[in-house]
């Protein structure tokens, strides 16, 4: 019997199995941010164990509330900053160089095929786009990761999606993952890895693959995974060119992190997604999904384009292509938050920032703030937001507020109309 990619990664990283179905794995990366890490740090200090297993494998960023909005968030940043300095963690991204964790860490080339990655953040599943096993964990798992470089997991049962056909213009990875979550429901993939495969995924950029893997957790999945291919190698090339003579050599090496044809799956879903329409959520669960056309005319108060799901350059390009020479509705306010400083710079050079500003958008610094109602775009009671983020939980972006999840294209079109709108009306 063959193995899935996740099984191969487990085999290559297993330290031991102290109990049945308990696989303790060696970690290649431990990512940290200022919300879930400070309590791990203070607990390690209180235990007299203020150590790190390997400062080169730990990467840290201040991203959730940045710049600090009050004394408490300033204190969280300070704890992380002092700790990074104390332990010689060189890859620490402070204000001015910081971005949304699941955008900046891949951008810096920190994730490679076959890696094990944890972070105290549920959207860590994003990094599976590189053919890695990447899982969100709580603060205690993070604490042990920091201290010992290990984490315990159950056997990675896997669901496979074979996605055939071609996405129509105006339909993106976000629409596809919303459709998949609707099919799986919010706990359909609990304790499982989700493999995204097929011609649709092969044709996707790394940015789109990250959007796909990012929301695996919304179906309960431990990790989303795409197979590494030449697109992965091209994305990573600047970081790996010292290791390989040619891109083909890199591809050959990385190709060991692909599931065997006779691997065993919990379930295999095959879809032809050629006729997929733009999708949007309603209600308070990410599996409550309808087509944009079914939801059109739903009034909105705010539009938000950003986050670890859809704040990358490709997302900004798509949104700007719709907003060019347009104005947002007088009835909405709109915010765009490029996910990293590099994305911001690129957007500036390409004239995208100007397009957003001319349309009436507020452009913020890179931060997670609005997505979880912490800063930079919190909703008032009774308001609705057209958002490119990942969770529509009750009150997620502000108490009493509603969130409609959608693609950057749909969000841009909705900003112009002041209501949920199909971007296919705007795209040439």
């Amino acid at each position, binding site marked *: 019997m063959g193995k899935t990619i996740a099984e191969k990664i487990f085999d290559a990283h297993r*330290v031991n199995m*102290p*109990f*049945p*179905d*308990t696989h*303790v794995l060696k970690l290649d990366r431990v990512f940290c941010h200022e*919300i*879930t890490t*400070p*309590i791990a740090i*203070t*607990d390690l200090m209180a*235990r007299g*164990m203020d150590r790190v297993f390997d400062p080169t494998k730990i990467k840290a960023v201040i991203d*959730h*509330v940045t710049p600090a909005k*009050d004394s*408490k*968030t300033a*204190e*969280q940043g300070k*704890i992380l900053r002092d700790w990074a300095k104390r332990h010689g963690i060189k890859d620490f991204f402070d204000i001015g160089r910081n971005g949304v964790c699941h955008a900046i860490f891949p951008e810096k080339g920190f994730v490679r095929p076959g890696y094990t990655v944890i972070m*105290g*953040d*549920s959207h*860590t599943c994003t990094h599976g786009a590189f053919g890695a096993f990447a899982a*969100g*964990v*709580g*603060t*205690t*798992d993070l*604490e*042990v990761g920091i*201290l*010992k470089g*290990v984490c*315990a997991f159950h056997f990675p049962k896997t669901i496979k999606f074979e996605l055939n056909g071609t996405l129509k213009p105006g339909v993106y990875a976000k629409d596809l993952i919303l459709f998949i979550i609707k099919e799986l429901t*919010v*706990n359909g993939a*609990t*304790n499982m890895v989700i493999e995204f495969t097929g011609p649709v995924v092969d044709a996707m950029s790394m940015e789109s693959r990250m959007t796909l893997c990012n929301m695996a*957790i919304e179906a*309960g999945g*431990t990790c989303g995974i795409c197979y590494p291919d030449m697109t992965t190698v091209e994305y990573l090339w600047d970081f790996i060119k010292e290791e390989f003579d040619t891109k083909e050599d890199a591809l050959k090496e990385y190709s060991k992190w692909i599931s065997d044809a006779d691997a065993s799956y919990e379930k295999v879903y095959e879809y032809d997604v050629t006729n997929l329409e733009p999708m949007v959520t309603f209600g*308070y*669960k990410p599996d409550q999904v309808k087509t944009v056309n079914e939801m059109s005319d739903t009034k909105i108060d705010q539009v938000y384009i950003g986050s670890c799901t859809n704040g990358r350059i490709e997302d900004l390009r798509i949104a700007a292509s719709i907003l060019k020479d347009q104005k947002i509705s007088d009835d909405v306010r709109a915010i765009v938050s490029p996910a990293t400083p590099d994305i911001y710079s690129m957007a500036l050079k390409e004239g995208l920032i100007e397009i957003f500003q001319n349309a009436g958008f507020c452009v913020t610094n890179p931060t997670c703030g609005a997505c*979880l*109602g*912490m800063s930079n775009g919190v909703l008032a009671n009774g308001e609705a937001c057209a958002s490119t983020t990942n*969770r529509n*939980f*009750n*009150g*997620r972006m502000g*108490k009493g507020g509603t969130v409609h999840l959608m693609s950057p294209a749909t969000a841009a079109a909705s900003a112009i109309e002041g209501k949920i709108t199909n971007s296919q009306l705007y795209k040439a």
Partner: protein
Amino acid sequence: MKEFSGKVLFLDRSDINTDEIIPAKYLTEITKEALKPYLLEDLTLTGFNNEDIKNKAVLVTRANFGCGSSREHAPWALEVNGINVVIAESFARIFRQNMYNCGMFAIELPKEKIEFLFENYAGKDSSIIIDIEKDKIIVTSADQSIEIDFKVGEFDKTLVKEGGWVGYADKNY
């Protein structure tokens, strides 16, 4: 080891997420105790009153409890309110692991057993005792009592007995 017995809080809904258990705006706290007043502040559940949390030690609920964010603030908010056990039809993976990592119990029971508990023990000032040696849950109200078998993995049980994952990992890795 923590205390695993006492009065029961019944929450009759599936998919209660960690944003409902502890809203993100309180994640700026850097002590667990500071979370105490905010447990379940944003819970959407008809008939639920935050006063219901008082003096409870065990939470019984439906499917997929603790979905969403990885925030361990969710188990901590329960813990500082004296709730060290959640019994549900199923849990989100990260929440479940966080509970055991803190030396707390997340116990899964079949759907019909959960249904039975809601039908016969909800709204009756019921108590639950977890017998960790015999793997039994003893449920009691004024007029009735029942024992239900439960099963958790060896790893989970070890973490409960050792008081969590940090201590265990420090000794073994």
